[in-house]
């Protein structure tokens, strides 16, 4: 355990834990979009910037990538930090002008309107979907492609990803809600990746409820105890 100082107060934390997580653990709010406790740190959105104390030139670093060490001292609420958050948010908003969550966060950080021409389709390139698919699901069906402002999240060669199992984790984890999923008859579609999957039907009520690709993966990975009923019955019938 080490002692860190946040805004003048001391806190105890496990050495190596990310500063952002330590702050959140202790009820200190630091806005963030690309960080998730169960995924590797990325440091891309730049909202979680904090000021490192004791530097000649005040240095802003991302708290989601900063591992805590003994005596680390940061400030999360200086005028410089607030200015940085507001201006970064001004850059994020035009990428996802229709997202309610982004608009609310923008307002909180002092950004009331979209100040730059907006051609954004909702993706803010936070990479949560990429990391979730790779690290949590283990499918790795999507990743970043191209460089700079042309950077997008895509399946390989922008073709339908065979390795996508249709679990919907990316849909749920996306902060701007720009990955949509729909179901019709016995098909599930992850629209953004142009992925169509056939679903298995419940043995009792006949309703399609689980992509066959997921049945496959779960069967292979769950050996003990075996998945049993969960692959036969829909959630309602269980």
């Amino acid at each position, binding site marked *: 355990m080490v002692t860190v100082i946040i805004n003048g107060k001391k806190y105890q934390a496990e050495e190596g834990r990310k500063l952002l997580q330590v702050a959140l653990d202790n009820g200190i709010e630091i806005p963030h979009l690309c960080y998730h406790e169960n995924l590797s740190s990325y440091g*891309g959105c*730049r909202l979680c910037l904090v000021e490192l104390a004791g530097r000649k030139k005040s240095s802003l670093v991302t708290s989601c*990538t900063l591992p805590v060490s003994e005596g680390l001292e940061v400030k999360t609420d200086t005028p410089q930090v607030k200015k940085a958050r507001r*201006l970064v948010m001004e850059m994020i908003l035009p990428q996802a002008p229709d997202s309610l969550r982004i608009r609310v966060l923008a307002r909180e950080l002092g950004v009331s309107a979209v100040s730059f021409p907006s051609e954004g389709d909702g993706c803010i*390139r936070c990479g949560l979907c990429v990391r979730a698919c790779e690290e949590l699901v283990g499918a790795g069906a999507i990743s970043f492609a191209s*460089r*700079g*402002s042309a950077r997008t999240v895509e399946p390989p060669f922008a073709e339908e990803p065979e390795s996508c199992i249709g679990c919907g984790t990316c849909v749920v984890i996306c902060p701007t809600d720009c990955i949509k999923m729909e179901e019709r008859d016995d098909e599930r579609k992850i629209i953004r990746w142009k992925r169509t999957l056939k679903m298995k039907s419940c043995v009792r009520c006949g309703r399609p409820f689980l992509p066959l690709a997921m049945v496959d993966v779960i069967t292979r990975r769950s050996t003990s105890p075996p998945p049993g009923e969960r692959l036969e019955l829909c959630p309602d019938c269980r």
Partner: protein
Amino acid sequence: MPVERGDSPFVGKLKSAADLEKLKLTILSERDPGKPCITVCMGTGCHAYENEKVFAALEKEIESRGLSKKVELRGTGCHGFCEQGPIVVVFPEEIFYCRVKPEDAAEILSSTISENKVIERLLFKDPLTGRKFTHESEIPFYRYQKRVVFGRNKSIDPKNIDDYIAEGGYQTLAKALVSLTPEEVIREIKRANLRGRGGGGFPAGEKWETTRRAPGEKKYVIVNADEGDPGAYMDRSLLEGNPHLVLEGLILGAYAIGADEGFVYVRQEYPLAVENITLAVKKAEEYGLLGENILGTDFCFKVKIRRGAGAFVSGESSALMSSLEGKVGEPRPKHINTAISGLWGKPSNLNNVETWANVPLIIDRGWEWYSGIGTENNTGTKIFSLVGKVNNTGLIEVPLGTSLRTIIYQIGGGIPGGKKFKAVQTGGPSGGCIPEKFLDMPVDFDSLGELGSMMGSGGMIVMDENSCMVDVARYFMSFLKSESCGKCTSCREGTGLMYDILDRITAGRGSKEDLERLEELAWTTGNTSMCALGKTAANPVLSTLKYFRQEYLAHILDKKCPAGVCKALIRYTIDPEKCTACGRCIRLCPQQAIRGEKDKPAVIDSDRCVRCGICLEACRFEAVLVE
């Protein structure tokens, strides 16, 4: 093109310093210093002027005259005076011929070689005084330089390790392996205060020490040859022209740090550099200077060459390491010190090509000699690429602390065409533009920062009254926008947004608010980006706004480009008083935008005109005006 010479006296690996010394003496004994040797610069600058044709022509002349055993022909590394290429230097007198054509080969053989006569028309002629110079060292371009690193390029064939050994190459390595401990090598580098030549200026000795002391057995050393600044080609020419110098520095570093494996990361776009360093590594291995038990000691070190894949950002040290690991070249947060956790999580010491090239010099001549060059906190020399609107373009090497004025006027020979100096852009896309009033500032790691620029990796682009500073800012922003890796919001969006504003301003669609917006975006990108690309992206904009604000205002308020560059804001017209109705411009205009009747002055249709400038160049009566 020259290939490996089959007449090396070498057989088997060198097993000791004494072996190396013996080999050197053997090589020297088989060479006659009085024997005429014609050297042809085989650097990329001269390659653009077809140096291989000059080489082939000389080869043919030597053969046809039956002089193959009496006259040596050697392709060497870059001489730096690229404006005057192809460069041919005849030894032993060191007669310096420039702008040599294949047709000159016969005369070089008949006059200079056979009759010891100097060919006047091939000598360098000073454009300002008209004076001619016979020897390289006399030419003003060279006289004011201190070519302790780059100067060794001129007599070495980069493809022949024996040339390097004959000049004392690898002796420093031999001495260090036998009589210095790794810590002593590090101490020497620290005391010499060698600072990173890639642009960061971080003390190399300190980085070496951190890497050495980092926990873990496995360590790496890396050569950053991903030189990406537009206009910079110093590292290219060093690696092409004297790869063994860089290699010797790297091996010394590996010894000092305790690394057993090294990488040279060369950008894909430098095929000759890749070829020459790959050959150098192979030769060094054959000679026992790389691999197991180097020179018979316990020290083992191997080097692999890796090529980049076309991304400027991969020159950033943490992005370079990601790329070496086979991942996309994306920088990592800087609070993770790569000297402790770098390549594959192991301590890794990365340095620039030029930094490594300085190492043998320091270990050989000592820290006191080295720190006697330059100034107190900026020791040694720096190689610059001096390009743009300057008479003597090329690669130069001067002590750190030399003033801009000396570089641009005494070495560079001033501005061509009698035009007026406007600014010098230093430090590439991370640097800024410096106006005339600061020409006496010393060029080093620290001074230019106060002006809003930086020395960077050594690119120096000179600009005159016909360079538009807004267009310059737009150019660099366009470069950074396309090279940004795209990971962090600040840089990815910031460079794009700043570019859009600059583009609109140069197209005559800017507003006063744009300047405030630009400054705000510059703050955000500069303070919140993850890596140096983003952090310094706004420098060209900020420095031009600081020193040339009136030019921005002219574009925004008057919709004019004072330098006559921004196409949307300039018009080409014909002065009816000067036009003689010769019809030349009418014939040459690719857009058929110029009309003319017999004996009447020609008229340009501004709507069809694309501002290509062909009429301006073609007119013999200076009747074409740009306003």
